[in-house]
């Protein structure tokens, strides 16, 4: 009960921003930053540091975990300006691994698989017309994004058609963005009307 009232109070604090910025909103904003960071740290402690460092080290005697532990502690040196050089080693390892992961992942799923699907034979009838339109759209939008040559002549015509495809896609995205934001508001109003004021059936 008291929890519902606190949640409702904080919800209204945030909504008060719609009138103008005020101390209630700033209180809610600062509380959110602190509690979110605190929650994040506690979750990291229980879900990463304990099972992936502490337990293997103390129960299994796995000394290899000292390597990521050292890299992690070196990262903390960044808090002092003189420690930037030490933290660089951890950052280098982290960025290196993720760059290595990205190459095959993007190549396979976003380049080869998509181009393979685009190159499929077109079926007969209306589906074939749609497949042809998708193919034309792909080529013309790629032409629009190709800036190594000026958008003139046939390249310019292609890029122009590509813009039209892009505008339709962005229009669709805008419609869906409105949908998403309205959904979030509906959920908060449902909470205020049902859980707090009991004006809606549970």
């Amino acid at each position, binding site marked *: 009960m008291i*929890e519902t009232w*606190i949640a409702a109070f*904080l919800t209204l604090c945030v*909504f008060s921003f719609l009138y103008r910025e005020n101390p209630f909103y*700033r209180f809610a904003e600062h*509380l959110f*930053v*602190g*509690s979110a*960071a*605190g*929650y994040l*740290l*506690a979750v*990291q402690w229980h879900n*990463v540091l304990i099972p*992936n460092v502490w337990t293997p080290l103390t129960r299994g005697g796995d000394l290899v975990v000292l390597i*990521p532990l050292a890299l*992690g502690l070196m*990262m*903390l040196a960044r*808090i002092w300006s003189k420690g*930037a050089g030490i933290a*660089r*080693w*951890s950052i280098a*390892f982290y*960025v*290196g*691994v993720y*760059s*290595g*992961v990205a*190459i*095959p992942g*993007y190549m396979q799923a976003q*380049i080869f698989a*998509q181009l393979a*699907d685009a190159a499929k034979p077109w079926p007969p009838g209306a589906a074939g017309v*749609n497949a042809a*339109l*998708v193919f034309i*759209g*792909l080529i013309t*939008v790629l032409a629009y994004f190709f800036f190594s040559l000026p958008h003139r002549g046939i390249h310019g015509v292609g890029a122009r058609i590509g813009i*039209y*495809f892009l*505008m*339709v*896609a*962005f229009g*669709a995205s*805008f*419609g*869906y963005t409105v*949908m998403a*934001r309205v959904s*979030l*508001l509906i959920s*908060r109003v449902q909470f205020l009307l049902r859980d707090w004021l009991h004006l809606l059936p549970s």
Partner: protein
Amino acid sequence: MRRGPLLVTFLSGAAVAALFFIPHHQAQAVNNKLLEWTLVVYAFALILGSMSLWNSHARKLNARAEGWPFSLVTLVSLVGITALGIWKGVGEGSPVGRIYNTVNSPLASTMFALLAFVIASAAFRAFRARSVEATLLLITAIVMMIGRVSIGPLISPHLPGVTEWLLDVPNLAAKRAIAVGVGLGAVSTALKIILGIERSYLGRS
């Protein structure tokens, strides 16, 4: 002083990219070990971020700068929830779990719910049919807004079909081109990092 870190980036990046294509279980064990290590490094990066948050608000508090009582709210909640979470756990039913449901959850979702108001106001003021391209965008957006919800078929039974076509043909074509473009960009950036051509992530010397 950057030669060492650049070598680490090259070795770790090249190893992980190569191991992706080697199905042997020993190779995959090495790959997994390298990936697990990044989890620990990431956890420390979050600790570093929280220390930085602490420093920033503690400075404001010490200097009694404008809005310092709000900084006190951030500091108390940061320390309190971290300590309570480490001591008592973070699962559903724990004290931090209850705080999460009461404080974090409503605050985060209401912050984003504000965007519904902002997007309606912005659409009214800024969404103008000033050119062919803008008109195309505007018409598509209106058709999608109406056609994808329950009221759409009541206005015209053809609207849902039109929205399906818009999503399946022009939208698909444009989004596929964007996906391919993003893919090419990501691969080339990753290669530049591994080969030491792109070094900005290491900061200034």
